[in-house]
């Protein structure tokens, strides 16, 4: 039994074990519905995320588990129930794991300290989104075999991106070089200490990348004055067709979705030959099955 609160702290061999195991969960693999038969997985989503929730739901069902779907709409949280109250109530139903999405960074850490079952972080605030990073790494391994010596460029709003943090830990642990790129207002301080190379000049680093991971730009950042306009953002940091042409031969384009088409990613690039975006989505369930399996075993 082990929590998955973030990728940080997981060793390379442990991550590889999850990724190796995920292969067995791809469509057409052996029947795994006995693995969590009779067990319950609780989906505790304080923040909407149809994709991640559905993906974990299908993963749990695929392992034979029952799924308890919980969301706060109109329920106890609006009546002043604390996060720990909610978590303890869920725990009382006896799940083998709580899969949790929350808008506060560190919320799953708090819950993990106070419950006995496994806690799997399905995205916490602007901290980590470990299952996304694992499915990204899985997708890259499918293409490359190994990440050793590869360069991955993460572009966009690094400051608010849990995907960026989890990917940084994950890609570095698996042997890749990671460059992050975004406007200075959206790149937090001290990333170098976490192992990233930082730049604000996309065109300068683009030709070095074996994969470019575009992040979703949260449009509300405009009102917070992190950026002057979406137009300027797109001009400086959008992966346009012109930029795509300057990428390395065979270099891949990724996006955790949902895409602001034409903003961070040109439609032709998103749907183009380099794009592995749909593979990322379809790998999600297999990777999440492996996560549930490994964490609860």
């Amino acid at each position: 039994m082990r929590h998955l609160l973030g990728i940080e702290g997981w060793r390379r061999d442990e991550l590889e074990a999850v990724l190796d195991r995920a292969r067995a969960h791809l469509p057409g693999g052996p029947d795994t519905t006995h693995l969590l038969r009779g067990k319950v997985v609780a989906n505790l989503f304080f923040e909407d995320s149809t994709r991640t929730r559905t993906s974990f739901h299908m993963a749990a069902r695929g392992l034979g588990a029952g799924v308890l779907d919980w969301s706060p709409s109109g329920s106890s949280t609006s009546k002043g129930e604390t996060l720990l109250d909610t978590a303890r109530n869920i725990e009382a139903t006896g799940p083998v794991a709580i899969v949790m999405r929350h808008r506060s960074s560190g919320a799953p850490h708090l819950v993990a300290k106070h419950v006995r079952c496994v806690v799997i972080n399905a995205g916490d605030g602007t901290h980590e989104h470990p299952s996304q990073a694992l499915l990204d790494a899985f997708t890259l391994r499918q293409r490359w075999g190994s990440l050793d010596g590869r360069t991955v460029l993460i572009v966009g709003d690094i400051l608010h991106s849990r995907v960026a943090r989890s990917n940084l830990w994950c890609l570095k642990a698996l042997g890749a070089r990671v460059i992050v790129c975004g406007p200075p207002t959206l790149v937090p301080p001290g990333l170098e200490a976490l192992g990233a190379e930082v730049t604000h000049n996309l065109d300068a680093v683009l030709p070095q990348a074996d994969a470019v991971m575009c992040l979703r730009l949260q449009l509300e950042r405009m009102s917070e004055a992190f950026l002057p306009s979406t137009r300027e953002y797109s001009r400086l940091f959008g992966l346009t067709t012109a930029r795509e042409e300057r990428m390395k031969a065979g270099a891949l384009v990724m996006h955790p979705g949902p895409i602001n088409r034409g903003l961070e990613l040109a439609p032709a690039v998103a749907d183009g030959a380099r794009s592995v975006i749909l593979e990322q989505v379809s790998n999600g369930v297999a990777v999440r099955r492996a996560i549930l399996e490994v964490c609860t075993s």
Partner: protein
Amino acid sequence: MSATVLFRRGRVIDPRNGVDGVRDVLVRDGKVAEVSDTPLPVPPGAEVVEAAGRWVLPGFIDLHVHLREPGEEGKETVLTGCRAAVAGGFTAVVAMPNTKVVNDSGLVTELVLSRARAANLCHVYPAGAITKGLKGEELAETGELVSSGCVAITDDGRPVMNAALMRRALQYATMFGVPVMVHEEDLTLSAGGAMHEGSVSTRLGLRGIPASAEVAMVARDLVLLEETKGRLHIAHVSCEGSVRLIREAKRRGLLVTAEATPHHVILDDRAVGDYDTHAKMAPPLRADRDVEALREALVDGTIDAIATDHAPHGVLDKQVEFEKGINGIVGLETALGLTLELVHSGLLDAKRAVELLTHGPAKAFGLPGGHLAPGAPADITVVDPLEEWTVDAHRFYSRSRNTPFHGRKQKGRVVQTWVSGRKVYADGQVKESR
């Protein structure tokens, strides 16, 4: 209660009067009567405190304490706060006005003072608000506050964001000779922040509070101070940039004093660990180079006082998501041990450490006490510098337990506290007078 007390053969450290050596201290009628390097005869009926191997110090003075009364008595009251104070060796505390009925009038000041008289443990000096209701809009009646017993004015917990109002507060307070104590935080820079902005906040995905949120306000207020010829006291200084500005302002002769908390000097932002709300404060725990700068400032006199910013909160205020966690920790009962860590590590000599807890704060606010010359109040703290102990929050006299130091090993402990010649704490017990 004994009117005459003789402290025998303790190491008396009294920085204001340049004393550091083995002395006898005779106390009579609540005042220090004599300090002698040769043994004194025991006067008839005197209580004798054998202090050999111990430090006999002026009682500690804490310029920054939240007693929570009136309004949040579940967290602390004047009485429980005074118990915690004397257990920590403090014989005087300055009570912040951001209670749930704000101390912005003589009525509230008098209420706090009457609770303090009833507690009858240590001196409680209220601080009044700078602005009515701490709203930062209109000046509170400084004159009434001071005549009712306030020793400083502050909107602590909040900055005075309006520069023109701050300028007037400094000007107006010059009539009464009280310091204007400031919590320096530019709210537009700190908005949404939960901890220091740096590599740790980046790792944890928490919005950071940049050092500039403090430094920019320190700079602004020093500019206003120079113009108004007022008296400014900067609370809980947390970063290198502030230290540099204060040092320079002092060099130029401005009437500015400053305090640092033990936690900002002992811990850095890494103490947040995996979202430990016990390491959440305002200002936040800063980076290691800020801690380094604060330590230098303690040594060279840029910082005048160690103050705890004792901030009691309930368990439920802390057992929440980090971003929701309430700021602050209790500090009265851990201050000496943490300060002595700086002595044991060789950063501070004992005399300077004692000065930061006694004469430094007394001088900054013009309070009585803080030294042991004949005629001074017999506020005395006896310390065993070698006793090793472990911080146990469950045994605090404070009504609250919120501390990141639970379980921390300490060397050096308060063994007795005397206020106005009366023993109020000894052998781990607070001595209530009733």
